[in-house]
């Protein structure tokens, strides 16, 4: 299976919300935006594991407040098995999918290596929903500065939640929250800059 297929497989089942100011980057556990398949594969590199063991390790290291469902684990493992990236290393008496122990194959190791070496798309969010809102407000003579103020407040609300979680969490929590905090901060810089340029923008977009 290709990397894209892993990613698309997940996206189709969990489509991202339309609003571009809510998904991935801004959820405390942004790491869940990654490919679960590759992560589980990576966890198998240290040795064969059962599905429940994979889930437990994933939740411990990456899941935090959004643990994996067992169904996600087993459907992902079935896919990896079908694509030859893992193999069944043993089955304990009693049957059922939870009794299978999985091991990574050489093709699986290669796939993990390729995934790790591929940079993530920076996604600059051009033409964001917020930009459209601001322009529409200007076009309809509404309070564009007010929209920016309200958005700043909403961003800060999320930043307070993350800051609090960071303060109480371990190093992993801190790093994950920092990632989200820096992205929110970048948005806020844009908000400030846009607020400072509203007059120019109004002149540019209004007839």
């Amino acid at each position, binding site marked *: 299976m290709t990397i894209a297929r892993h990613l698309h497989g997940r996206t189709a089942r969990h489509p991202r919300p339309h609003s571009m100011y809510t998904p991935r980057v801004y959820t405390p556990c942004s790491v869940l935006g990654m490919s679960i398949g590759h992560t589980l594969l990576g966890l198998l590199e240290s040795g064969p594991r059962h599905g429940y063991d994979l889930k437990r390790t994933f939740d411990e290291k990456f899941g935090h407040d959004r643990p994996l469902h067992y169904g996600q684990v087993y459907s992902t493992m079935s896919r990896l098995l079908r694509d030859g990236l893992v193999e069944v290393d043993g089955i304990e008496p009693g049957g059922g999918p939870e009794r299978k122990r999985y091991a990574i194959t050489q093709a699986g190791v290669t796939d993990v290596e390729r995934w790790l070496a591929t940079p993530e798309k920076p996604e600059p969010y051009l033409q964001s929903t917020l930009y459209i809102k601001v322009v529409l407000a200007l076009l309809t003579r509404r309070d564009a500065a007010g929209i920016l103020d309200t958005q*700043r407040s909403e961003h*800060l609300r999320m930043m307070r939640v993350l800051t609090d979680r960071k303060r109480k969490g371990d190093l992993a929590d801190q790093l994950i929250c920092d990632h989200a905090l820096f992205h929110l901060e970048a948005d806020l810089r844009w908000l400030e800059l846009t607020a400072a340029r509203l007059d120019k923008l109004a002149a540019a977009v209004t007839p």
Partner: protein
Amino acid sequence: MNAPAGSLLVAEDLRKAYGPTVALDGAGFSIHPGEIVAVMGPSGSGKSTLLHCLAGIVVPDSGTITYDGRELTAMSDAERSALRRGEFGFVFQFGQLVPELTCVENVALPLRLNGTPRREAERRARTWLERLEVDDLAGQRPGEVSGGQGQRVAVARALVTGPRVVFADEPTGALDSLNGERVMELLTEAARSANAAVVLVTHEPRVAAYSDREIVVRDGRSRDMERAV
């Protein structure tokens, strides 16, 4: 602006101009005991002038400021100075420690100015240096410590008198991310445990995220986002 009940410090319709430059143009503010409020806004928006008015350092041209039921704007210079020494604490962007004094002497200084005997003042100062994790610097002078350490000493100095309001003007503006973060953690933890209110002027969202709520100052006017939403 109608201040919510139980406010400790309230400002209404503040106006202040420096010559032809209008710094405040009808700004308002309120804070409860133990609350941390961020004052945000672009450079030149009037947020530092607002802080200076609230702290009684600058007298507004018009408008009222009430602290704990007392009208600040009607007080004499001497009364406002006494209030600042007894009830308020200050943290500035660049520490503003006295370079000739050691760190413990700097922290003890507000107590000494209030008449506390030296031994007792320095004992309390050391306790605060310990809480800010810089007790090992007690005998050093500000020129011998790092920027982050200096700010922690400044925070200790701001809190040593047990103020009811701490005014912090860009307290991490001169620090890198890690040091700034630690200073904010220590400042807010110490203020919360002492039930001191904090007026936090900042243009940095990551610093503002340590507050309970924010007001935005733009063109000399303020907007309280909690009550606006």
